[in-house]
């Protein structure tokens, strides 16, 4: 077990550019060296605040990867006043920012040739769709959901895929969410890749199951370590997970991209019920009886 086999690194990365591209939406290019050279679409990096009081890394998805140059583009939302993301947005080109990555597993890129693919992004789930669009060699439609006419990245994604827009306020494209847009336009696909808020992913999981479509979703959760050690960012799973030996998988290490049918997107209440019922550790009816006898 040599540590040189490791592809993950934590190091200071020089900021190459910083730009506001929408309301509270920022785009930052990093000179990330080997982090960038090893990255694939769908992965993320952890960014660290300089404020000693803000300890935990902020996980941010990769919007563009320049593997040859080891450069990464991060498009992120400033989540509020005094937050870590606000601090990042104020850092100018030339200064370093501490980053760890590349983290997690990316989207599967093989086996889409000749297939019709949907790239579905909602809000700050849109950025990873840009690098993904660049890397898929097939018929691609990007269905992008925004709050309003502030449609950041839509034009850039449009260079690599057909773009269909949905907005919550109806100002551009279909009024509603990304699923409303598919239905309104009567669009069909063989494979779906998606990243966005949990309600959107939940609806897509159901849509894909109803229509028998292969569907890959990228999940988000509050994280601490970012590398699979702390078990902070788990998601309930349909089957017993091979690493955890319970119905839980690590989003940071085993995800963030999962086949939609493999994960359960549950509310806190639903999670609580499953845990209380013993479902999370039950392997089959026989093992349940055995545990009771013990």
């Amino acid at each position, binding site marked *: 077990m040599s540590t040189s086999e490791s592809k993950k690194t934590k190091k200071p990365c020089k900021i190459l550019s910083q730009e506001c591209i929408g309301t509270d939406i920022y785009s930052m290019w990093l000179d990330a060296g080997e982090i960038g050279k090893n990255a694939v679409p769908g992965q993320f990096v952890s960014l660290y605040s300089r404020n000693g009081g803000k300890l935990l890394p902020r996980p941010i998805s990769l919007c563009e990867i320049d593997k040859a140059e080891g450069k990464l583009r991060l498009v992120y939302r400033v989540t509020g006043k005094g937050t870590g993301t606000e601090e990042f947005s104020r850092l100018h080109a030339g200064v370093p920012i501490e980053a760890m990555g590349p983290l997690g597993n990316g989207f599967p890129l093989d086996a889409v040739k000749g297939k019709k693919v949907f790239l579905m992004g909602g809000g700050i789930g849109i950025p990873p769709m840009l690098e993904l669009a660049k890397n898929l060699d097939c018929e691609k439609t990007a269905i992008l959901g925004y709050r309003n006419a502030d449609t950041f990245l839509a034009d850039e994604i449009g260079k690599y895929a057909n773009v269909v827009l949905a907005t919550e306020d109806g100002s551009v494209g279909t009024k509603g969410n990304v699923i409303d847009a598919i239905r309104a336009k009567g669009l069909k696909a063989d494979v779906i890749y998606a990243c966005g808020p949990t309600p959107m992913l939940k609806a897509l999981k159901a849509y894909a199951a109803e229509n028998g479509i292969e569907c890959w979703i990228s999940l988000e959760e*509050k994280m601490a370590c970012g*590398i699979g050690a*702390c078990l902070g*960012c788990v998601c309930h799973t349909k089957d017993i997970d091979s690493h955890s*030996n319970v119905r839980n998988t690590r989003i940071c290490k085993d995800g963030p991209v999962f086949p939609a049918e493999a994960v359960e997107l549950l509310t806190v209440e639903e999670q*609580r019920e499953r845990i209380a019922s013993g479902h999370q550790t039950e392997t089959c009816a026989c093992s349940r009886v055995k545990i009771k006898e013990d």
Partner: protein
Amino acid sequence: MNTKVNLAGVELKNPVMTCSGTFGSGMEYGEMIDLNRLGAVVTKGIANVPWPGNPTPRVAEVYGGMLNAIGLQGPGVDVFMERDIPFLKQYDTKIIANVCGKTKEDYVDVVERLSETDVDMLEINISCPNVKAGGIAFGQKADAAEDITKAVKRVSKKPIIMKLSPNVTDITEMAKAVEAGGADVVSLINTLTAMKIDIHKRTFALANKTGGMSGPAVKPVAVRMVYQVANAVKIPIIGMGGIMNAEDALEFILAGATAVAVGTGNFIDPYTTVNVVKGIEEYMERYHVEDINELIGAVK
């Protein structure tokens, strides 16, 4: 220069180890650091059967620290023995298995099983604030702590470390109780029970409502408790709580800890443990300390 320390007959190449629950069984951090550099790896809590843990969100940031309510998710002792012990055996570091349970019988069961393995020591978690049954139920009453210590000591073939909770009125009473029960070593502190509220969503930041606070903000509390315990018991102490660098670790050692453990510090920087080892060596060089044991409890 000697950096070796001795915990109940187990010799560690240096006093730096990991805090249970922050380091898995070393596989993930082993991709980024050389585990051979560590005095010991302390594993995540191991129960007799798989535990599912708590609902998410399980972690939250607070100023200068974090809260967690993982709920001791674990694969169970069988998987630990088949997969994790052989993994750790590849490295030149000591293996300390952390044990958790809901009942006294659960603890005894796991201790008996692990006694027959290649682990070097067992740390008994009687201080997890995040599970309702077990854990903390044994860690806040002196007689219950003494009783569980006796029960695990009776069956254990390995030295026993009892991990103490800071969520008590007098930590020295707890330390004396586990010493009376036969504990070989005491480790402290586990996390401080805490809460964070999301004012925008008007809900708790953690699904479990409360969680354990850790990180640099708790360090002064931990150093104080290590000092108090060092003056109350004769058994060695493993000190932990917010260690981010060698300077922090040295405070614990000077206060009376024979060994130190890095927990939350791993999340902030995966290289923290190794940097603490290096930093202690540099400190010893700078102040011409021949033997690290000279520093243990040197501040009276």
